[in-house]
């Protein structure tokens, strides 16, 4: 049986988290993500989980990392100012390989910016925000139903690859209410869990990875398996070695465990792309304008399609190269001064012209505004 509801994107994230088996949330409420904290405070105790409102943003992710180390699927949510504060902890989760989901509902920045207005200013920050070479997965939903599905997927990916997964939302989708059909119970939902060690506790090497997927088994704290967690570069024992070869081996594995599995990780949507001669690339809330603009263009006989990355990092490199080889041009539409377009340009590498329609005035682009930009770009 199922329920048909009118929910906000933020509320759909909450249901997705519960469905995926998240049982700990630590965070500090911030617009436009507050509904996630507010509703999880209600929902988690109902399913035997714990909700903790922390003293600040840093502790929000800190507690989620701690709860994950103790064996619970964990998450936090925030917006730009809080995402800035969380970067140090994010780096720890990367190097210590702690599964955790961080939802960032973007608003206008920098700093306090415009709390209630939409933007997509953290595209590059979500990829590169914490210092040092590191690799994360970033997904971005474009609808309320997709906010539910993608939260489940974010949790599953973080568990499977032992990596922080960032759910990069924006105010458009976080606050929008639309129809969603939810199952009455979440028993049938496919939920991945981190692998746990099968060896004896005294034989456990916390960071000895399986050859096949390069992901080490993770023992929950308190289970009798002892391991050392550190932000220092470490070898398979969990302790720092400090040798050049050890650092290379360690970082290569953190990279390869993600980038050897791109076919599993990278998802995207092609909308009216089959016979397209020109493509719009947009994701998250900006894609809502793009679907409508593509339909307007089609009504005028223009063969325009939309390529919508759902996994925005790692970048869908293979897919964008394939598209660039068969069309006359690409327009990247994003709610910022131009971030994703830099990566699109790098990957397309001159195979077709790449233009930008960056919007950074507190408002979504209307389909008509985007259509006008498509026409301009098609003339290039």
């Amino acid at each position, binding site marked *: 049986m199922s329920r048909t*509801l*009118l929910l906000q994107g933020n509320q759909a994230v909450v249901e997705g988290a519960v469905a995926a088996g998240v049982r700990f949330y630590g965070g500090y409420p911030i617009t436009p993500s507050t509904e996630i904290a507010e509703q999880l405070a209600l929902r988690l105790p109902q399913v035997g989980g714990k909700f903790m409102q922390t003293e600040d943003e840093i502790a929000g992710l800190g507690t989620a990392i701690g709860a994950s180390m103790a064996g619970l699927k964990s998450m936090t949510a925030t917006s730009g100012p809080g995402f800035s504060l969380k970067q140090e902890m994010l780096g720890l989760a990367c190097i210590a390989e702690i599964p955790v989901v961080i939802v960032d509902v973007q608003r206008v920045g920098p700093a306090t910016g415009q709390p209630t207005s939409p933007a997509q200013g953290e595209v590059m920050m979500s990829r590169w925000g914490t210092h040092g070479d590191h690799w994360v997965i970033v997904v971005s939903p474009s609808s309320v139903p997709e906010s539910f599905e993608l939260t489940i997927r974010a949790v599953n990916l973080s568990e499977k690859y032992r990596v922080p997964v960032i759910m990069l939302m924006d105010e*458009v989708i976080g*606050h*929008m*209410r*639309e*129809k969603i059909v939810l199952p009455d119970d979440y028993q049938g939902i496919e939920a991945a869990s981190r692998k746990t060690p099968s060896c004896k506790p005294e034989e456990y090497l916390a960071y000895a990875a399986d050859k096949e997927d390069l992901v080490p088994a993770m023992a929950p704290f308190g289970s009798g398996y002892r391991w050392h967690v550190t932000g220092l570069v470490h070898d398979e024992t969990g302790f720092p070695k400090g040798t050049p070869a050890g650092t290379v081996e360690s970082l290569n594995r953190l990279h390869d465990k993600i980038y050897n599995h791109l076919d599993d990780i990278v998802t995207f949507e092609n909308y009216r792309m089959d016979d397209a001669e020109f493509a719009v690339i947009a994701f998250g809330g900006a894609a809502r304008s793009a679907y*409508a603009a593509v*339909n307007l263009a089609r009504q005028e006989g223009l063969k325009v399609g939309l390529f919508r990355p759902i996994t925005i990092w790692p970048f869908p490199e293979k897919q964008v190269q394939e598209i660039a080889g068969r069309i006359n041009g690409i327009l990247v539409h994003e709610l910022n001064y131009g971030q994703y377009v830099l990566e699109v340009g790098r990957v397309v590498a001159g195979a077709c012209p790449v233009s930008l329609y960056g919007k950074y005035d507190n408002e979504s682009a209307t389909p008509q505004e985007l259509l006008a930009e498509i026409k301009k770009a098609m003339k290039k």
Partner: protein
Amino acid sequence: MTHNFRFSGTGGQGLITAGIILAEAAILDGKEAVQSQSYGPEARGGSSKAEVIVSDETIYFGRVTCPDVLLVMSQEAADKYSGDTNEHSIIVTDTLFVKDVPGRCGERVDLPITHAAVEACGKTLFANIVAVGAITALTGCVSDEAIEKAVLARVPKGTEEANKKALQTGIALVKNR
């Protein structure tokens, strides 16, 4: 068929709640609906708007670019949010707060929304439900059963009867004008 609604006024008048109720009623009727809003960082005061799109088809862009129905419940909102109406738009005003609406319209409906809320239910805070009743009666975009069910599902316990009365008051304002 697609209906584009914009409810605007001052933060605290309950216009976002009104938008949610209309969207929920549309879903109860089996239609597609998207509701969005725009407001400032203030908890109360400041201009606020809620938008609802009701359609039989998939709704891609979730914001309203030309309202079929614009409700204005403050003069500031009338000035700020009527710039993109056209000659087919219906503009509904609350006569207590609004004198001039600069935007174009096909029909202007001036109703004593807040006054009627006080008269029927004793409090100005029922004005949003009176407005929902009026707009439902004006457009017929959702069924009477669905709108009543949606109102009752959203309002605080113990206020059901007063809200039903507010809804009927709004419907009567339009029918008896």
